[in-house]
Structure formats: C-alpha cells, structure tokens
C-alpha cells in the first residue's frame, strides 16, 4: 500500500511542480514494480473481503474507497502509458492534483472503514 500510494504521490508531486529537476518519465520507470505491489494489495484485500463480506459490502465508504482507488490506478496506468512512450501529458498539474486527492480519499476511506461498519457478520443479524 505504502509503495503504491507513495510512488503515485511522488509522481503527482513532481507533476505539480515539486522537484522540477526529476524527469517524471524516468520516475515512471518505478511503475512496473508498482503493479506487483498493487496486485498484492488486491489479493490481500480480496482475502479480507472474503473473510468479512457483509462488513465491507454494507458500508457505503467501501464503494467510495473502491471508486477512488480505481480512479487513482487508472491515472497511474495513463501516466505510465504516455510517460514511458515519451508522449506529453495533457493538463498534467490538474490531473496530478486529482490523483493526490483520490489517494488521500482512498487512505481516509480505507481507515474509516474499520470504525464505521454497521454489520460485522451477516449471520449475526439473523
């Protein structure tokens, strides 16, 4: 999680204008490794979902987290495709700010999930 969010924040910060000397196309060379970390998150997340399906699926925040995560990873995929091909990015600053916002939402929604669930196990409601 830290690596996926971290590298995306680093690329986004660069695109916003911090560390202007770092070439973001080079920074994107870390993206292939980042997909392995993302796969690990998906697998462990799936295990947690299978363990407590009702807990997550009945919480609206879970869908917020899923949407923000999908958005963040889509931006990463777009940046990787265009960046590594050497193409210019459209409105990079705007998209970078959106990416930072999406990752912050993902982290907050994910953490608040542990405190806001109304159902732990479906079997307990019967």
């Amino acid at each position, binding site marked *: *999680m*830290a*690596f996926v*969010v*971290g*590298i*995306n*924040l*680093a690329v986004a*910060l*660069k695109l916003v204008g*911090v*560390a202007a*000397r*770092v*070439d973001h196309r*080079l*920074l994107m*060379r*870390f993206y292939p*490794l980042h997909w392995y970390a993302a796969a690990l998150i998906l697998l462990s997340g799936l295990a947690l979902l299978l363990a407590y399906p009702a807990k997550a699926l009945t919480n609206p925040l879970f869908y917020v987290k899923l949407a923000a995560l999908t958005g963040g990873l889509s931006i990463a995929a777009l940046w990787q495709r265009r960046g590594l091909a050497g193409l210019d990015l459209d409105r990079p600053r705007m998209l970078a700010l959106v990416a930072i916002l999406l*990752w*912050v939402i993902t*982290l*907050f929604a*994910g*953490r*608040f999930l*542990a*405190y806001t669930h109304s159902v732990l196990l479906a079997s307990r409601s019967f």
Partner: protein
Amino acid sequence: MVESLANFAQITGIYAVMNSPWGWPTAESLHFLGLSLLIGTVGVFDLRLLGVGNGISFAALHRLVPWGVGGYLLNLLTGTMFLTTAPDQYLFNPAFQMKLLFMLIAGLNMLLFYSTTAASVRGSAATAGLTARAKTIAAISLLCWSLVIVCGRLITYYRPPYHWCFWC
C-alpha cells in the same frame, strides 16, 4: 511512565480529540499518508540505490526526500497522539517495542549514509553502479522501514497486560 504520558495527553487536549468519534481514525489516516510519503520518496530512493530505475539521477531523485521527512514528522506527531492517549496499549506491547527498535536502526543507518556515502552517491553518474556499502545501507533502510510498518500494523493485535512490562 504511563501516568506522565497520559497526563501529557490530558493537559494538551490530545486525549479529548482522540476520544471524539472522528479523532482516532483521522489520526490513523494521516499516519498512513505520512508512511506513504516516506516509502514513496525515501523507499524509492533506496530502490534506486539498489539499482531499480537505472538512469534516474541520484541528486534529482533526492529532491523528493524532504517530502518523506515531512511524512516522518507527520507520523511522529500522530504517533505521539496514539501513544499518549493509550500509553498502556503501546509501552508493554512487543510489536511497539520492536517498531521503535527498527526505527532506531533506520535512524542510525541514515546517519551512517549521510556521514559516509551520500557525497559519493550525489556525484555518481545516473547510470553508474554504486559501492557495496551504499547498496547495503539502502537494503537495511528499506528492510527497516518495511518492518516498522509491519510492527505498526501488529500493534493492534495485542492487548498487553501489565505483567508484560519487563522494566516495571
């Protein structure tokens, strides 16, 4: 020690904030943001020292490190908020003790890097291979910060009783 930390939380108002419905999860979310910044900059720099992303200038990539330091400071602040609000859940907790140990090793490792190796790394060409010392320091740093995160996660799974306190 438990009382003095708890008193600190009471006097500063940390206890009240952390016991509000949103206090603890907000501090945790910020803690996660801080660790992501640390891994995304310092961790990525460590990976670069180890040879990943060959071609990226060391000095240029190092410009992102202050953001990692910022993340670390954010975590020091939020971490203090957790510790002082529920000191008995942390001080006797083996996961917390191990976490502090790995933070200490990472800190000493960082001092070693900046006192012995940083200057030569800064001057190295972006495609150059580094010394074994630089790579070892990077591997220790990456390992320590990963273990700090793992231990931090494990803290939640212990409810330490007072007799776990080995110095009391």
